[in-house]
């Protein structure tokens, strides 16, 4: 059970959030089918730091991007989706 530091609410228990997968933007709606296939089905599986999305459903109802280490589970920081990392 992780602690996720919500950019708006501060540190909260993981049970307040739902997971949104890797923080990869969706292709444009008119992008070719192959781009969509890749975006949906071809995933990197890094051993180390990566960025992922969480939704603070039992909280401020905001989506946030977290930088998490996939092995140690350490979360180095979070940001609003719009902000630069």
């Amino acid at each position, binding site marked *: *059970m*992780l602690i996720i530091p919500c950019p708006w609410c501060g540190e909260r228990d993981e049970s307040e959030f739902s997971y*949104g997968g890797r923080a990869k933007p969706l292709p444009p*709606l008119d992008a*070719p089918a192959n781009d*969509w*296939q890749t975006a949906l089905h071809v995933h990197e599986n890094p051993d180390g730091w990566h960025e992922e999305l969480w939704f603070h459903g039992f909280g401020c109802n905001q989506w946030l991007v977290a930088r998490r280490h996939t092995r140690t589970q350490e979360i180095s920081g979070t940001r609003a989706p719009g902000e630069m990392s």
Partner: protein
Amino acid sequence: MSGEGQIRRLAQGGMIDRAAPLTFRFNGRAFEGFAGDTLASALIANGVDVVARSFKLHRPRGVMTDGPEEPNAIVTVGEGPDRTPNLKATEVPLTQGLVATSQNCWPSVNHDFGAVTGLMSPLLGAGFYYKTFMAPQGAWTIYENLIRRAAGLGRATEGLDPDTYEHRHAQCDVLIIGAGPAGLAAAQRLAGSGLRIMLCDERSSPGGALQATGETIGGEPGALWARTVAQSLDSSGDTTVLQNATAVWLADHRLVTIAQRLEGDSPVAQRLWFVRARHIIVATGAIERPLCFSGNDRPGVMLSSAVGAYRHRYGVAVGARAVVHANNDSGYNCLAELEAAGIDVATVVDLRPDARIGEAARVLADTIPIHADSHVMATSGRKRLQRVEVGSNADTVAQRSFDADLLCVAGGWSPTVHLLAHRGTPAQFDPDAAAFLAQPSEDHLDLAGSAAGHMELAACLESGWQAAGNALASLGHDATYRTFDQSVVSGQLPPGNLAGPWCSAQGVRKRRKAFVDLQNDVTAADLESAIAEGYDAVEHLKRYTTNGMGTDQGKLSNVLAIGIVAEITGRPIAEIGHTTFRPPYTPVTFGALTGPHTGSNLLVTRRTPFHDLHLAAGAVMEPAGAWLYPKCYPREGETIDAAIRREVLSVRGSVGVVDMATLGKFELHGPDVGEFLDRVYANRLSTLAVGRCRYAVMLREDGVVFDDGTVTRMADDIWHVTATTSHAGSVYRHLTRLLQVEWPELEVCLIDVSEQWAGLAIAGPRARDVLAGVVSDVATEPDALPFMGFRKGRAGRHDARIYRISFSGELAYEVFVPAHVAADLWHAVMEAGTPFDICAYGYEALDVMRIEKSHVADGEIDGRNVPGDLGLGRMAKRDRPFLGSALLQHYGEQRKRQPALIGLTALDGITRIPGGAVLIDRNAGGRKPIGHVTATIISPTLGKPIAMAVLDCDSHRTSQCLCAVSPAAGLEVDVAVTAMPFFDPAGDRMRA
């Protein structure tokens, strides 16, 4: 078996309350003990030798330890619904009237028919589970019955657990696990710092190992020092001390789960704490190891540290005449305890050569003869140890034999590193310490005391002090160094100079009686044969032999086994490593894990604003996802089926009313909503006029249908969107993600309004008449409020939203008012509907009617179908992309065949088409499935069975010989394809 009265209770001493005698029953016999006893200490005091029978071989066993590492004394406590099996007698606090029984024996623990299995022990070696009962194949069902009866330890009760359990979330700055010397020293240093401190300990009072020895701190007994420190912590206000609280799991981000057992008069039996700490100090001590020699499992063989534990804690002498067997200096500490308890000591059998035995140990031995470089070769005495045979390590035959009813074994100490190992970093074997030591690999996590490998009391105290200093510094507090005054400490000998074989038994016959895991009856011979068969990796060895897989979770047997493997294979222990440690550290009862979430509180339940009104109207309420929702409203003497029929006929014949509150409802505000909806739905929505509604289908990114609903334009820039009950949450997440993450440039404000609007759908030919009697400030004539129209108005004193949409296929209006005045709407509708015999209907009738109109719902939207499969293909926009459009085309190309949604009737016109049935084509021969039934009813309106089904391939729809087959129900029904909708295909009724 047992003598009369408490023959082993010492006249004085112990932390028991001699002014509070208790009576209890064990295996039907009455005994006496005292408050403060455990069941084990009371049994020992009463001279009960045989407490249980071992799991596989049914060997008589006695108590071996004083703690959670106990492998032998597994009992069932309580009767009836209170019966709890598989408890360790060393962990059961004695209470007045306690009833306990042995397990795994029949007819009694002293005369157990199961003992005959012991005679078969050569056949029951490692891995016999995998080699036996293989043939003949058909005989397995016979074997299974026999094995079920023989297998298992205790028997669970079948009644509901009468106890109450709690969960508790807590947060603190520093959590100290263990209130032994190190933990208390750390807590002492942290007190007064202003930090929030929590201290938990598995025993009923603080002190840890200090309770079990004669060690002193500052000139006073360690146990007294502990009590004083704990009392001052309690009164300081910022330290919470939890006793009877075992930390069982150390999880990510310093979340610790603690299982706390509460005292007898508490209304709550156990409390499971979830403690989030900023810093954790693990001061969990160490557990002594036994030795592995032939005959090491008889009642009377005990850990050497148990002698002092039983004397100091319970005032009990664990035997009358002892032999001590050791491979390290700490084994000599028990000699003083034996003497103080009035137990004669015949000899010390030391595995080590003379030269290795420390001077301090010899001093403790005093006049007691030491047999160095020797081991115990055999023991005898079936229900209690009687004789110990000793020989030198060089010989194969015993040279001396001693009368003894107590054999104190000292095999070294293993730091309790389990919680750190839960974090995934294995402990490393330190040959000097002869122990596995853990290194915390994370910040804000520290070990202290014996858990960190410090085996002398002074070092434990100092290390606790240091750990507290580290905690202060890491949390940004002043940590001015103060040393702990070590001169005032008088401690026992640490386990120095450890040497000797891990298993001293030589030859197969002896090694078959040299137990490694006492609970599961795993011997050195078993380890040997498993290794010979190739299972020499520790994880394989554990599972093949079941070593370490009992309720004691290998606390005594793990390291012993690893040492023996090293001996057999010649590989160093450090290279062999240990098995993965998994939580919980000790068994946790399911009740504690469940906490308050049991019975009617098992799941979160949602109620609509009309809930009480449904009940008053006689509704049968059923769970629909998280919701409680009316199934139907049976009248006096009516069956469920009859009620559903009546409701459908009433709605189609006159008018009915149903609760619409469970749908997801979202408002969207802003100039870009039309564009947003065009991107998110397959159909065109931006062209929707104000005051109009449109059915809309939402796709997943891969083109599969995700959800459907109604989009309403309430004003130029104010829209309203619905989602199905089961997808409300996921649709909301989907939409917020698109707006916040993918397309933040769109000016759209999305608000979840599901809760604040309570709605009823009034449906049937007389619906307009009823509506007119309910709402005001709005024209309800067909041209004023057309089909798929929306208006605002009033219902009584309240604002109302009125949508003319229909799921049932009848003329229908959905009226919504603010949720806190829902009752007013219900009463108004019922009153206005009385002249038309209005009836309330539930989800069954709703489902019947939507099937008659072939509207798609969960059975059809099953995560596998694209719009074309469901007859909704023409809805999708062709002139612009939308979410899912890129792959829709692709999906169509990828699939070899185009599925189709079809309608079916039973050929005989009577038999209900089985639910979930698979479709086959009799003409095609064979029984290859070509589709499945998604929804089926006997239609009250049409008077015949109908069903919706998905065919894998559209071409099959012309087949003349379709059959619906349900192997689960054992039914086969011949069916014919028929046009949909089954009823009112032109949709005239809802457009009236």
